[in-house]
């Protein structure tokens, strides 16, 4: 690890002092702005020593499909935070985590002391519409390549290269639905067996229904400040140690058995934090599809290439394991309201590190946590990954 690099990065410059989210689900009764409002109120309330909203000097909102235009105004209308800089961020499935990352940069640059980040998505109002409309009128740019198709292409390649089976991949869904059944904010709170995963109807072979995350409404919020100011707000701050973001496309090459964007983003985040993958105690990683989590174990350095399934079979990534992954049930159970996803993962890790994660609290007294997104963009022709390392 290099001290210089840490000093140039975000290392311990930012503290998360408040975190909150709403219960994810099919929320026809709540508007986009009422979801943001509620998540923000939860975050304010979670600040142990209290916070006056007037202390928030800038805010970011991560959302992909806002209902009324594309500006940051939605956040102002929901929170009453007018008269300060409010910016909307969109970056595929890393939308929420990139909003967080961008807010961290503003604190690290010394421009703002206290900031708010909200991630939100209202997906159920339009059913499958957002997803289905994508990529229908394209010549070579991925016509008809849905999200399950993009990740399914990686599943087929991975299974072929490493002789992995659909059963191996199904273990991700079984684990995450087990955790999700315990997690109070999850959209889906049921358990499922390997047999049920395998017998479910195909969406995009080799992926079936239970290999896919649901379409979900949700919102989550974080309040961060300059690290030296954290004691004003809480005795239990959680620090940002490292952050990385990278893009890739398999049209440059590769065999589709991994996601190089994750590898690049993870390398940046680990280097900034001065930690190795082995040191991570708990992680929320991107399981938009079961295969995504399995491959991400390898891209994040938790397993050697082709060896990811062993972590599941040996229950090392289970809730009671040595390195619990997706204690919240992940996107598969909690749901994947795209802009909210990254922020909700960070909310969960904030609570895990503080020992406040309730029924899904991991038992290994975590000190280092990792958050990860890998998404697709540009009509399923490229990928965007974001990784954060948090610590006490």
């Amino acid at each position, binding site marked *: 690890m290099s001290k210089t690099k840490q000093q140039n990065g975000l290392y311990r410059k930012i503290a998360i002092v408040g975190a909150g989210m709403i219960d994810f689900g099919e929320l026809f009764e709540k508007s986009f702005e009422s979801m943001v409002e509620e998540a923000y109120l939860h975050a304010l309330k979670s600040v142990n020593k209290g916070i006056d909203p007037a202390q928030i000097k800038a805010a970011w909102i991560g959302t992909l499909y806002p209902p009324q235009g594309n500006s940051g105004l939605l956040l102002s209308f929901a929170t009453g935070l007018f008269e300060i800089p409010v910016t909307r961020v969109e970056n595929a499935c890393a939308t929420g985590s990139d909003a967080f990352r961008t807010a961290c940069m503003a604190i690290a640059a010394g421009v703002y002391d206290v900031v708010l980040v909200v991630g939100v998505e209202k997906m159920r109002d339009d059913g499958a519409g957002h997803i289905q409309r994508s990529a229908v009128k394209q010549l070579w740019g991925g016509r008809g390549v849905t999200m399950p198709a993009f990740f399914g292409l990686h599943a087929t*390649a991975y299974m072929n290269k490493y002789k992995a089976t659909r059963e191996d991949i199904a273990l991700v869904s079984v684990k995450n639905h087990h955790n999700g059944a315990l997690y109070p904010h999850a959209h889906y709170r049921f358990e499922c067996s390997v047999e049920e995963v395998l017998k479910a109807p195909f969406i995009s072979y080799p992926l079936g229904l239970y290999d896919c995350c649901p379409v979900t409404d949700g919102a989550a919020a974080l309040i961060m400040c300059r690290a030296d100011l954290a004691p004003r707000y809480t005795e239990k701050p959680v620090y940002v140690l490292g952050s990385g973001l990278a893009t890739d496309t398999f049209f440059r090459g590769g065999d589709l058995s991994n996601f190089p964007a994750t590898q690049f983003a993870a390398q940046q985040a680990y280097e900034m934090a001065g930690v190795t993958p082995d040191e991570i105690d708990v992680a929320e990683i991107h399981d938009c599809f079961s295969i995504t989590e399995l491959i991400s174990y390898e891209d994040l350095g938790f397993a050697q290439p082709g060896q990811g399934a062993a972590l599941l079979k040996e229950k090392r990534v289970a809730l009671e394991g040595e390195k619990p992954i997706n204690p919240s049930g992940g996107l598969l159970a909690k749901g994947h309201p795209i802009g909210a996803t990254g922020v909700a993962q960070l909310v969960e890790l904030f609570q895990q590190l503080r020992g406040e994660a309730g029924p899904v609290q991991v038992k290994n007294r975590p000190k280092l946590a990792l958050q990860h997104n890998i998404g697709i963009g540009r009509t399923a022709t490229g990928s965007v990954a974001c990784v954060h390392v948090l610590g006490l």
Partner: protein
Amino acid sequence: MILVIMHKPPQWRIARENARLIGYRCKHCGFVEFPEPRKICKRCRKPSEFAELQMQPYGRVISFVVQHRLPEGFETPLPLAVIDLEGGARVYGQMTECKPDEMKIGMSVEAEYRIFYDDDGLHIYSYKFRPRRSESM
């Protein structure tokens, strides 16, 4: 080969490359840009010169899925592949005349110019792929 008239700018801009399978090879690293000619290479990331390349309508399947849930206008189950054209570009390939259980990584496919979709009543043509039956043109 007949160039089909396409009435919208996004298709008009790549009409020649789309109809004739013309790619552009980076002089630094050999990467083939397709279908849009560019000045910067995706693979070596350098500003580069590109040589026009007549690609062949044959390729190899790198990976595939069989899509069962798609919007209106698609027949399902629909095999979809990532294909490396021989000596050319990597492309997404919608399969046709192909049973889902015929699909295999490494299989040879050939490209055929077909109606790709209808846009406001106008036929938009492009290539679909089927298992390769002939070894030469």
